[in-house]
Structures are given as C-alpha cells and as structure tokens.
C-alpha cells in the first residue's frame, strides 16, 4: 500500500517545524516515529499535504527527574523509556505499560510523545498520563503552554493541540510517599490494541486509607475515559476487597466501548471492571511497599 502524495519536510529545529505547521495549517501533520501515522496514510484512512518530520530535531529525547517532576521528552523512543531505571523505581504504571505497546520492533521507532499526542483512545499512553496527573507541554507560534492530561483529549483523534502546536514534553508530578501505580491490559496477541485496559495511581494516607486515586481506561470510548466517580468513591476508604470491587464496578460503568472484533460492548465493559480491580490491587500493593 502506498500513501497518497505528500510533501516531506525535515526541519532542524522546533521553531522551523512550527513555522512549517503555521504555513500549512491543517494540511500538515507532525511525523515522529510514524508508527500510527504512516499506517493510517498507507491505508488512506487519512491524507495530508505536508509531513513535518520532527524525528531528527535535537533535544526531544530525555527522561529525567527535576525538582519533583519527571520530564519525558516527547521524542523519547518507547524502547528507550522501557529501559529507564527511573520509571521502574517510581512509575509502575509506565513500567507496566510501555513493554505492552504494540511489539518490540514498533517500540524501536514509536515515541512516547507520539503515542500521547496521536489522540487515539486505543493507544496506551493517554490513559497513563491521565492516571499520573501529567501536564502536557505544547509549543506553537504563540509560545509554550501546558495542558492537563485529563483536559487534553477532546474526541476521537481530536486533542487540545492547535494545528501549529507540537507536544514537546510530558511532565509527571513525583508521586507522594505511599503511592503506587499500575497498568493492566487485555489484548488478543502481541501487537494488538487493548480489548480493555486500566491505568491507576493511588496514594495512601498515614492510616492506610486511600487518600487519592486516579483511574483511567484505554479503548473504552472515543477518548481515554477518566473514571472520576470510581476514584472519588475510593478516597477516604480502606483499600479492601469490597471497596476495590465497588470502585471497579463504577469505573466499568463509566466505560463506553464500541463492539468490534475484540468483543461486544458487554464483554469489554466487564473486562474494564476486571482489569480496574487488578490494576488497583497491584497499585495498592506497590503503595504499601513504599
């Protein structure tokens, strides 16, 4: 399969890239790893007049902790992120999820930022950045701004990014003490999107009750779904089986999946429930181990 014709640009700096996006408006698309965009162009699910390849722009690949914030450069390859000791030490949800994105060959090209900014609710990283309470840094011709991850996703493939903006960094607040996070995903095979998946982060108070919880679901609607009601239910309560089960039930009721080859609406909602409960248990265990 061959994509429809387009012009290819390889800017050397972010400013040049933003200039190209400004000039070509919605007819331009940002190419990073290309693992979602190129298949979409080949299948002609989309077309674009101009591809702006940001893959060679220096300074977009890093993973570093800096004054209570984990900063991940948007161009960081998924294979590199998976090897990062930082994520294994404090960001269990990332350590769980990154090795489950697509397959190893795709992760050699695919970037973390691309997975976040693509706007596909079937991608794993959107639910994760929501669960971690991340801020997404966008740069455009007006300068830089940040958008909270849970306000970033507007609709299927529609994000808060303007046509001239590029996601440059993902900022994740350092989880407080007694925090844990986890990702649980059901997929039919390596390389498949999730039939259902849940990303959670919890923080316990000094008495061992849940102080704060955040739950987000992958591939459960047109955008990643933040299960706010489920999280609020848990807060202030003991993290026991009964409360976990009720939170998982509430999370599943927030899911609005559509039926496809991965299963019926009922099946996917039920799997969202099961996976939320499992992710909560894993995260709570990690929180207790801090």
């Amino acid at each position, binding site marked *: *399969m*061959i*994509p*429809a*014709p*387009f*012009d*290819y640009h*390889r800017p050397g700096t972010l400013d040049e890239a933003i200039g190209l996006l400004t000039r070509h408006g919605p007819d331009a698309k940002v190419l990073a790893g*290309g*693992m979602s965009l*190129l*298949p979409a*162009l*080949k*299948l002609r699910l989309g077309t674009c007049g101009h*591809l702006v*390849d940001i*893959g060679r722009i220096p300074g977009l690949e890093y993973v570093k902790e800096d004054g209570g914030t984990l900063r991940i450069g948007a161009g960081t390859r998924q*294979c590199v992120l998976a090897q990062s000791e930082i994520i294994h030490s404090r960001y269990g949800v990332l350590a769980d999820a990154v090795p489950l994105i*697509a*397959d*190893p*060959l*795709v992760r*050699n*090209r695919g970037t973390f930022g691309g997975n976040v900014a693509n706007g596909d609710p079937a991608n794993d990283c959107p639910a994760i950045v929501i669960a971690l309470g991340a801020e997404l840094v966008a740069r455009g011709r007006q300068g830089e701004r940040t958008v909270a991850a849970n306000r970033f996703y507007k609709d299927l493939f529609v994000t808060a990014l303007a046509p001239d903006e590029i996601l440059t960094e993902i900022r994740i607040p350092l989880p407080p003490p007694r925090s844990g996070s986890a990702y649980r995903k059901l997929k039919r095979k*390596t*390389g498949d999107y999730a039939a259902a998946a849940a990303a959670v982060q919890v923080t316990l108070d000094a008495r061992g009750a849940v102080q704060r919880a955040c739950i987000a679901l992958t591939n459960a609607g047109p955008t990643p779904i933040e299960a706010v009601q489920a999280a609020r239910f848990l807060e202030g309560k003991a993290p026991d089986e009964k409360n976990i089960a009720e939170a998982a039930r509430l999370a599943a009721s927030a899911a609005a999946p559509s039926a496809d080859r991965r299963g019926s609406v009922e099946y996917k909602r039920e799997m969202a429930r099961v996976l939320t409960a499992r992710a909560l248990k894993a995260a709570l265990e990690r929180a207790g181990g801090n």
Partner: protein
Amino acid sequence: MKHKINVTVNGAAQAAEVDSRLLLVHFIREELRLTGTHIGCDTSHCGVCTVLLDGQPVKSCTVLAVQADGCKVSTVEGLESGGKLHPIQEAFTEKHALQCGYCTPGMLMTCSALLERNKSPSEQQIRQAISGNLCRCTGYLNIVKAVEYAAQKMAGGVS
C-alpha cells in the same frame, strides 16, 4: 516531491533520489533490487519486512525511504560475509527453524540484532524479541532453539 538521500546499505553507500512517499521496503526491493526483504501484511504487524536501521530492527513497510537518509540499513543479503553464512543463518539450517521461509529474512534480522546486544539470551528474552515477527509454520519452537544454538556458536561453544 523528490529528495536526495544517502543511505549505507549492507556497507555500500547508495545515493538516490526518492519520492516523499516511497517506503523503505520498496526502495530496498525495487530500487536496489534486494528482494530478500519480503512484504507481508504491509501494516506493520507481521515483521517479514524487518531490516536493521542503524542496528535496530524496524518494520521497513512503515518507514519512509527519506527517513533513512544518512542511516545504515542492513538487510538479509548483508548477513553472510565472504561466502560464509552468519551463525544465525547456519543455526536456522541446523535447527530447521523454517518451513516455507517467508518470515525468515525478517526473523533473521531480528534475531541477529538480539544476539548483537545479548550474547546469551534466555528463552523468554528470545520469545520477547521475536514477538513482532510472525511465523505460521514452525510454532516458534525451532526458531528459539536456533537462536540459542547461534548464541552458543558465537560464543565458541559449538564447533
């Protein structure tokens, strides 16, 4: 829109003028006539088009030729040197790690890259590494055995 690219393929410098939308796999097969790299699903699932881009296995059906500008590309044709098969190729023969052979070029590239960075991979590491390459004949068992055999051979453990 045409672009001048310079790519080193199996050690040989190649200069070409390519269309923006030309895929790396088409450049390799149709422009360079290196048809050892196959096309399978054409949607970045099956991995038969795997080549090494600067040493890393990637699916060349999902990379633009112009993205490879300035990079080193290795294909299955580059595995043997001086008429001598690469240990992973010998191991695939020895351990009967193929039947129809369609996935083999991609599988060989992924396995050779694994052995470059991990001299003695465990069964689990091998299975993980090849999880983006589909084989419908072997059930993977003999492929895993072949990688283990090649690792031993490369370490000097098998004569």
